[in-house]
């Protein structure tokens, strides 16, 4: 059975990086990613289960890895060779048990919460972060029974979603898929969970002006999360920047109050916040900015449009960036990272709730499965990755691999 395997190969890595100059994903065919025969991974323990992928998404962090643009920070928390694909919905052919201890019958569908924290690594007692339910912040990502790997899809032992041979998932990673969910709904749960965590990390207060930079999957899901999870209790105005017309339409439909092209975002925020302008920066600005891109440009833009003592939530995965931090210092800004998911406090009457469970609800409520725009069979991975790298320009949001033996792209 075939799989896309990412190997540590410096010449291929360099070639991919050069090719990416011509567009994200352009180096897929010459880079460290190889289309190879693969065997199903071994289960690392009794509490692990085989999962046969149905759909597996191509994420911005996957593209950054393929393009050689991701930070070297991650080098020690990945293990090679790995099979990418951490946005996965699959079938438990032999059944399994989900994170809540519920038995899932053979043939049940499940989505994977990919963080490989203390529980999958069989580390007891867990690290303080996992102990507190902040699985994304696990301190032991390179320890325990597994090879290093921050997530499924970056670990040599677990396999990943870009494989017909399947992957293995720990019981703590499994979330059953509601009956009424399409596979598209299910595959969008993981990025939605990132957005839920980000939206709830913003510390939004009543009547805040909130700006969202970037309208890819993360940006759009963040808008949806703000609309459905924050607004019911905390009224706020959401101003979003979106480059492409379809992104603008979707952003509006998901609840953004104002959606403008990126070069108009600062002006729209200025109007909303009633700020003055000094040397191209707003003197006031948004109370909270969600940077769903993570580039030098987007961070600079975010810092230039947030009010003094405001917060910039970094949602998109950054790498090494060049940003003038003088405004951060001078205006006493708070730069917050929002990575992955875990448990959200105050998210339910009982106090806490798993981010993934909230994401599943949000996907249903906001119909986020419709963000899946194109699906490719695995053997057309080069096209798929190029499409994902140019998703916005080509009218798409989320591009996925379809491992259900369907021929040709979905549309």
């Amino acid at each position, binding site marked *: 059975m075939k799989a896309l395997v990412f190997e540590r190969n410096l010449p291929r890595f360099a070639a991919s990086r050069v090719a990416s100059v011509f567009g994200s994903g352009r180096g897929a065919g010459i880079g460290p990613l190889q289309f190879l025969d693969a065997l199903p991974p071994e289960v690392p323990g009794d509490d692990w289960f085989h999962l046969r992928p149905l759909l597996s998404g191509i994420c911005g962090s996957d593209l950054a890895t393929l393009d050689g643009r991701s930070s070297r920070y991650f080098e020690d928390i990945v293990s090679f060779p790995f099979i990418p694909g951490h946005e996965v919905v699959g079938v438990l052919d032999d059944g399994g048990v989900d994170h809540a201890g519920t038995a899932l019958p053979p043939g049940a569908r499940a989505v994977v919460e990919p963080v490989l924290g203390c529980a999958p690594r069989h580390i007891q007692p867990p690290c303080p972060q996992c102990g507190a339910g902040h699985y994304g912040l696990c301190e032991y990502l390179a320890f325990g029974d597994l090879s290093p790997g921050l997530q499924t899809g970056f670990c040599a032992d677990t396999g990943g979603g870009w494989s017909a041979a399947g992957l293995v998932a720990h019981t703590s990673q499994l979330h059953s898929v509601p009956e009424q969910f399409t596979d598209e709904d299910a595959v969008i749960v993981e990025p939605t969970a990132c957005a839920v965590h980000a939206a709830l990390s913003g510390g939004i207060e009543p009547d805040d002006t909130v700006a969202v930079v970037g309208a890819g999957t993360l940006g759009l899901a963040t808008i949806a999360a703000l609309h459905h999870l924050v607004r019911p209790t905390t009224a706020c105005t959401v101003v979003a920047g979106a480059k492409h017309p379809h992104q603008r339409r979707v952003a509006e439909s998901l609840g953004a109050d*104002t959606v*403008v092209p990126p070069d*108009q975002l600062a*002006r*729209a925020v*200025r*109007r909303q916040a*009633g*700020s*003055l302008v000094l040397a191209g920066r707003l003197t006031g600005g948004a109370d909270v900015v969600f940077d769903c891109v993570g580039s030098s440009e987007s961070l600079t833009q975010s810092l230039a449009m947030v009010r003094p003592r405001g917060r910039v939530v970094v949602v998109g995965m950054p790498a090494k960036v060049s940003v003038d931090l003088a405004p951060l210092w001078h205006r006493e800004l708070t730069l917050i990272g929002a990575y992955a998911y875990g448990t959200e406090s105050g998210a339910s009457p009982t106090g806490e709730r798993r981010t993934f469970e909230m994401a599943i609800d949000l996907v249903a409520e906001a119909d986020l499965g419709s963000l899946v725009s194109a699906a490719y069979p695995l053997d057309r991975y080069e096209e798929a990755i190029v499409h994902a790298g140019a998703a916005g320009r080509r009218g798409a949001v989320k591009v996925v691999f379809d491992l259900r033996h369907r021929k040709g792209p979905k549309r």
Partner: protein
Amino acid sequence: MSPRPGFVLEVDRSTPPTLYWHGERFRLERLPEGSRVIYAPEPIDPLEDPSAAIRRALQSPLGDKDPLPALLRAGMKLTIAFDDISLPLPPMERPDIRQLVIEQVLDMAAEAGVDDVELIVALALHRRMTEPELRHALGDRIYDAFAPNGLLTQHDAEDPDALVHLGQTDHGEDVEINKRAAESDLLVYVNINLVAMDGGHKSVATGLASYKSLRHHHNPQTMRQSRSFMDQHHSELHTSNWRMGRLIADSGVNVFQIETNLNNDAFPPAFSFLQKREWEWSVKDRLAYLGVSKALDRTPAKYARQIFHSVKAPHRMTAVQAGEVEAVHAVTTDNVWRQQGVTVDGQTDILSMGLPYISPYNVNSILNPILVACLGLGYFFNMYRGKPLVREGGVVIMSHPTPWEFNPVHHPSYIDFFEQVLSETTDPIEVAKGFEESFATDPWYIHLYRTGHAYHGVHPFYMWYWCAHALQHLGGVIIVGGDPAAVHRLGFRVASTMADALEMAQDIVGPSPTLTHVHTPPILMSDVQ
């Protein structure tokens, strides 16, 4: 030979192509047989001795007003307000009429021993004028005598300390105007009356007013009931201003109104073909057209714009009258019609117009898409008396490149209006309801208006309201040669050629439509019978 009156040509097979302005360029269009082309009257002969005429007018005022010298005395407070950069169009060659008139007023004031004299640019919510623009309007002598001493100021509609609330009209309209002007013993207002809308009580009640005052008549409802605002007696805009003007007079503000008329000699000899009817073009005119038009076609728009904005019009003064506001204005309006009026028999299905590079609100600047709309639908459409040139449900075809381009110094709030308001709605009522107040009170726009050279934050709304009557009246608007994105944002349709536009218009007005083209500038006003 006396100048020929305006003329309505019926296009036949022998009619040469018709000249259309197209921003900083020109187009020649062959119109369908049977189309009408309206030409302005030829320029009226100017006054032989403008200075003497001004003196006479000041000494022999109209209406219930003493001669100016009799109103001047030592120890009094005298304020001279004058029209801003928006008039005349194009800006006139030196000496500007404002200079000629104000020099005479100052001479008389000096003879009377008046030493508390201040000059105020009556710019309402327009942008502040630059020093070169002020020097051009007033001449160096006046500028140097007043500006360095702080005696030449620009009306600040956002300075609460410089405004005074005089009361409310019987229609509940707030009248708040420039404090120095209101508290002077005599307020002399110097007008350049380029079109019939200018002058009268509108001079003080609008030119020296605050937003609080202006919003009572600068709104879509008033504009829709101004049919047209070039016809004072059928213009709610004017009715409101007249109520305010009378309240201003009743409040004890002593206004001495000076109004001037210009002929429509709008372009220098190099552009003489613009003033002529195409079938009368001489060989020299044809060569001039070819030379200018080819050169402009090869010139980037930015430089073509600079070239045109450097053009100064050889406008000459044809009349000057002074005295009591309403008596003066009645004469002025007659004079405007004498120069610009053309009698037109009946309405048309399609009205076409070539829009030039300039409007009252982009002197030395960019005619951005909102101003394109305003120039076509606010100004040219409204240049009528009786009934609109185009029938209800008809189509206006405008020719202009309509680039998505703004001057960020002059028109900052226009950018946001275009990006954020028109993307939501183009309905003037909805625009006013949903967005006006937030723009009008935006501190950044207020800052730029007060300290830079920016139009007030609410100004793009007024430009859109200016179109309200046309937008309600018309079945469609098509812009030939416009930038599609910008034109669509305006809510209009775009055509690449006049033939395409006529084809598209027929979808709205039906087959075999009548077409009338207003051959302007120079400016003309239609008296539609």
